[in-house]
């Protein structure tokens, strides 16, 4: 990385990707995106500390990157097929709205406001009770409002509290591998308590492969993945 991107300088995963692309002076293609996978994953750990509420959004894009990365690493496993808009397409589109938002901001900041007029109000000569504003209408409306305002279960927080960082997962898989030399990927996942943790485990495994600490055998598509210590 030539320069460091600061955590507070990007808004979401797509913004981060765009900035990484610009830093590395790359075009938005699947291949260049896959090259950014590791840099992107590095931010996941930082996010976990400071912006944990956004982690889910970043994980969605992280899985797409990991998919791209694995596709470029092992192209023979991915037959050509139409998969709909790619991450590169999504990012290009996002970039266009960012450009447009800068033009919108110019319009907004001009303070070139189209004013409306204010017609002097017509007062009723006597009070008219609206037909639908009786006591029971108020009660129903208030009950509806109160139930709408019911606080959402703080579910996301709990999930994130339990989530394990990629780094931690790398360590735990690495330790387990050192002990057993060979493991079934399914067994590694058996301790996972959430989807997030499954994703994190997969990312961790990719990291171990990247660092040439592990390799994987799989005898058939969707077959067992055997993780081996190198």
């Amino acid at each position, binding site marked *: 990385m030539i320069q460091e991107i600061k955590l507070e300088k990007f808004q979401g995963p797509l913004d981060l990707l765009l900035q990484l692309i610009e830093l590395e002076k790359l075009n938005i293609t699947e291949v260049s995106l896959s090259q950014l996978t590791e840099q992107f994953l590095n931010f996941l750990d930082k996010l976990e500390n400071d912006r944990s509420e956004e982690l889910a959004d970043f994980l969605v894009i992280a899985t797409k990157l990991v998919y791209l990365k694995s596709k470029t690493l092992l192209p023979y496993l991915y037959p050509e097929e139409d998969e709909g808009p790619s991450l590169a397409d999504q990012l290009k589109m996002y970039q266009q709205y960012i450009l447009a938002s800068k033009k919108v901001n110019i319009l907004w900041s001009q303070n070139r406001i189209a004013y409306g007029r204010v017609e002097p*109000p017509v007062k009723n000569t006597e009070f008219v009770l*609206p037909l639908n504003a009786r006591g029971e209408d108020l009660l129903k409306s208030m009950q509806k409002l109160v139930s709408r305002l019911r606080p959402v279960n703080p579910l996301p927080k709990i999930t994130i509290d339990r989530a394990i960082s990629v780094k931690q997962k790398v360590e735990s898989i690495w330790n387990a591998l050192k002990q057993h030399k060979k493991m079934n990927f399914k067994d590694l996942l058996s301790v996972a308590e959430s989807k997030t943790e499954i994703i994190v485990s997969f990312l961790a495994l990719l990291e171990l492969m990247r660092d040439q600490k592990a390799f994987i055998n799989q005898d058939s598509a969707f077959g067992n993945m055997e993780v081996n210590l190198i």
Partner: protein
Amino acid sequence: MNINSQLETILFVASKPLALKKIVKVLQVEETAVSEALANLCFKYNNQESGIMIIQNNDEWQMVANPDNHEAAENFLKAEVSGELTRPQLETLTVVSYCGPITRPELEQIRGVNCSLILRNLMMRGLVKEADDPSGLLPKYEVTMDYLRHLGVNNLNELPDYDKLHNHEHVSITLAQSSEPAA
């Protein structure tokens, strides 16, 4: 600068009679130029097909609705202040009833939407008014006595389930969240 256009704009937004001198001062042009522009504007608007008219009273000028359409205009304005409440209006009135006196930011925090137009309408209808509260920096809103009387109650706490709903915990939690940083 286009005098005709600017004149049209200020007569439109002023919503009241404007003295020629005042127009001259605002537009910062010669009086003759303003008079000419006023004549142009009268020529443009003052015909039977127009929905807007320019009227002159001595040296005062005003943009008004075409009197031929006064029935349509009145029907519209009356419906605004006497018809059924829209769902957002009813909800706003409800919050003011059960949680008032209440400031606009508090009201908006509870409803999650901007309420300025709705409050204006409810005040025009005589359902809501600004509370007499000299201490507060922000105006607080409450329902009017007229409204309460028409509901057949003497006091807010006679509203159905008032005690339960007045300080409902969901409402206070929502209000407490107002200081959260903007996303």
